[in-house]
């Protein structure tokens, strides 16, 4: 992979008041790479992934997404956001719109597609995530797993180059986690560039190209799933893995 990385992060710092949340994070992401970010709560992993589409502002360092440098320029930010999809822990579907309206809103308003084109693509996506029959329901009428799949379809409708997942299964009941992971796995195998903050180690083992362990606002260790699971180098990584893999 000799191409230019699709995401370049150099020495990114972020403070909340006096709290140093990100302490000089640097990394490159290649096109098509699937990266799983994990670490204890409060380690800054969610904050980091949210700086990549400017839901959080970084105060020092440089972030370049798809050749566009993140700056205060609103047009740059909106362009980056329309190239990156994001899926949230709490789904964040729009409760006053139907599933179909949730999906077609951004393509029609931002991409300026016709309603017909947007709805065709939305239907294809709903079939891809396995719930075409729910198109005309409201989010409140769906289960958590279905809602999260709609949220994934909504992000994909913008035809993003990068997908960011921020703990997508943490708010789900156990029996619904699989249906969401299946969709994510299929997406990973289709060649999408993915950064996922998750503790689903089965998912990581199956599809991740690289795993990144975050602790106290910095990258402690990274490597292939094989390296991370079988021969972690750092003590903090070993300790954390032993805690989440014990049962």
């Amino acid at each position, binding site marked *: 992979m000799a191409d230019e990385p699709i995401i370049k992060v150099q020495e990114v710092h972020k403070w909340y008041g006096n709290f140093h949340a990100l302490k000089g994070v640097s990394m490159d992401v290649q096109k098509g790479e699937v990266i799983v970010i994990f670490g204890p709560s409060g380690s800054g992993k969610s904050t980091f992934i949210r700086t990549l589409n400017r839901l959080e502002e970084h105060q020092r360092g440089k972030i370049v997404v798809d050749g566009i440098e993140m700056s205060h320029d609103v047009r740059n930010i909106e362009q980056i956001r329309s190239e990156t*999809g994001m899926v949230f822990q709490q789904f*964040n579907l*729009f409760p006053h719109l139907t599933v179909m309206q949730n999906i077609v809103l951004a393509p029609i308003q931002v991409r300026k597609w016709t309603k017909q084109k947007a709805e065709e693509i939305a239907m294809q996506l709903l079939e891809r995530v396995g719930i075409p029959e729910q198109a005309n329901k*409201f989010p409140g009428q769906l289960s958590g797993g279905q809602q999260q799949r709609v949220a994934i379809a909504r992000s994909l409708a*913008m035809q993003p180059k990068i997908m960011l997942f921020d703990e997508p299964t943490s708010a789900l009941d156990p029996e619904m986690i699989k249906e969401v992971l299946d969709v994510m796995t299929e997406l990973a195998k289709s060649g999408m560039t993915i950064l996922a903050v998750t503790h689903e180690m089965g998912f990581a083992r199956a599809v991740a190209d690289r795993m990144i362990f975050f602790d106290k606002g910095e990258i402690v260790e990274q490597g292939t799933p094989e390296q991370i699971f079988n021969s972690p180098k750092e003590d903090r990584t070993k300790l954390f893995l032993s805690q989440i893999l014990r049962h």
Partner: protein
Amino acid sequence: MAINEPVLPPITERSNILSWMRKNLFGSWYDALLTILGAWIVYWALSGLLRWVFVTAEWEVIVVNMRLLMIGQYPLEQAWRLWLWLGLLVFLSGNSLAIWARQSKYAVLLLLAPALLSLFQVGAGQRGWLIGLTVTGLVGWGIGRIKPEVLKRSVIAGWVISLPVIILLTRGLSESETSFMPEVRTNLWGGLLLTFLLTVVGIMFSFPIGVLLALGRRSELPIIRWFSVGYIELVRGVPLISILFMAQLMLPLFLPDGWTVDRVIRAMVGITLFSAAYLAENVRGGLQAIPKGQFEAAEALGLSGAQTMIFIILPQALRLIIPILVGQFIGVFKDTSLVAIVGLLDLVGIARTVLAQPAFLGLQREVYVFISLIFWVLSYGMSYLSQRLEERLGVGIR
């Protein structure tokens, strides 16, 4: 215990009115005492009221002055213009009932109200118009029932253009006396007509201004934020009556010589600006109730700030505050009565002139009970409609 035994629901107590009374009204000696005491108080209050309404009260003052109370000095030969826009409103109401209130079977009965009013002592001409209104409403209802889906957009458009149509018809087209629709100056507008127009204009214009002020108060641009905060706090700190006085008495002092602004328009501006400040705070409350995740999801999709507001945040925020908004609109409706103090002849103002007629001295009770009844019926109507609206919009939410 037999395993196959079916599980039965609890036996419901069969009751008739006598056993219900024994249980709920005469359960013990103090229950019985309270029941008798309560019944006596109700009888005492009701019989007094009914005797006054049907025997003592001299309703002639209302009958004789009905036209004044309804439209003030508005010329009778031009009154057809008012009936015309009333017809438009009733027609649209009929459409809307058929389209949006299909579940409530009795809603259509509302359209019979004008015809029922015609049973009272009204002139022959008015009776015809009132029955005409009901017919128009029923026709609108019928049309709405035939093609509800197709008509939706045109009915909404109809409501949108109805305010300019009302103003245009009421005011007239040209100044020449001989023309088809000569101008009727606002000093002739009065009674319920004026109250209605002040209310509708106040609501329609204060709503967008209030929403903009609420957004302005949350703006990141300091000048816009300070202006919004300053405006809201300034206006909310002053009673409406003093704003009306300022608009009537002080505004002319600031305008250049020869400039005059119509007195009714001055009152409309005062009411609108006053209501906008309160509305802004209500809308801000709604905006604050929207979870941060909604903003984040919209932004993450690449929607701009304005698109996020228009498509995601405002629809949810306004839906949340429908009950508060309607409460405020009812407030605007009743507050318009303050214009009587600055000399406009709205429902209350005209009531005072009626009471000044030598023939009807001392009939305050009849006149004020009558206008209170009008205020109550219309306020309750707004409240009822908002409840239906909430039910409709509540479908499938969260």
